[in-house]
């Protein structure tokens, strides 16, 4: 059974939802602590949402230098699947594992809703069970989800098929409607919406989020 680690920073909110989603998807959830420098032998890592370190300085900027992040960066460089959700996406950008940055939403409002997304790439460790072009519904909840990158970076992301998700109906002003991206290798994925909240009909309006957590298990089995 795949062991999937979920990192808790001070101020993380959605670690328990992420651990639960991992379990619902049939994998073994492993809690990881920010101040530890051990990944406990996990096969994949999730950086969950929330407000790590109170979002002081910039979202994700302080978490990026937490002791465990050194291990996460090394593991990501060696090809381990890493998923950053919302604040976790911001941490991945601050860590330079992903390109670009998020600023405050264009309308200056905190947005909380079920959001339609288009899967632009299934060539990643976390999206391989989706069909390219598939539309899914995933919970979105953030105040700073407005994706920015300089024109060269944006061009490169588009050319290399590194845009993984696009908003259908841009909620926050993100450039090119980008909701999530991946690195060149396709093992690190970050997105603002929350797949771990869309795993049961009772609370999520869809169960499309489960596919993230089954995708990574199929990837791990296929490459074992």
């Amino acid at each position, binding site marked *: 059974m795949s062991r999937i680690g979920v990192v808790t920073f001070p101020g993380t909110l959605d670690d328990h939802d992420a651990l639960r989603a991992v379990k619902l998807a049939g994998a073994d959830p492993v809690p990881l602590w920010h101040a530890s420098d051990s990944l406990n032998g996990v096969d994949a890592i999730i950086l969950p949402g929330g407000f790590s370190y109170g979002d002081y300085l910039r979202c994700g900027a302080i978490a990026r230098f937490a002791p465990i992040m050194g291990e996460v960066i090394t593991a990501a460089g060696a090809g381990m699947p890493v998923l950053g959700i919302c604040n976790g996406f911001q941490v991945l950008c601050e860590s330079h594992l992903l390109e670009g*940055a998020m600023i405050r939403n*264009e309308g200056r409002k905190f947005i909380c809703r079920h959001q339609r997304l288009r899967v632009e790439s299934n060539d990643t460790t976390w999206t391989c069970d989706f069909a390219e072009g598939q539309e899914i519904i995933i919970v979105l909840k953030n105040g700073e989800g407005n994706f920015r*990158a300089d024109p060269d970076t944006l061009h490169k992301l588009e050319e290399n098929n590194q845009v993984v998700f696009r908003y259908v109906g841009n909620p926050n002003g993100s450039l090119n409607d980008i909701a999530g991206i991946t690195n060149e290798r396709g093992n690190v994925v970050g997105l603002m919406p929350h797949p771990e909240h869309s795993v049961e009909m009772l609370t999520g309006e869809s169960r499309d989020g489960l596919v993230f957590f089954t995708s990574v298990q199929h990837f791990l089995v296929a490459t074992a």
Partner: protein
Amino acid sequence: MTLVVVDVMPKPEILDPQGKAVTSSLHRLGYQGLEVRQGRRFEITVNGDLTDERMAEIREAAEKLLCNTVIETFDVRVEKQ
């Protein structure tokens, strides 16, 4: 005591929603013709002499932590020596 100030500002081409909110509030209060961009100011107290190496170190720290150069620019200056 030496005080070094690091100013961090959103890049000119980056939308500044906070600055826009402050600007429209100023307009509502009757202050016309003023446009605000909002950044951050860090005051850093330096123990010991402010050598060139020390300044270089502060610049490095600013680039590494205080500023995200994807969306912001920064300026380092000596405020009080």
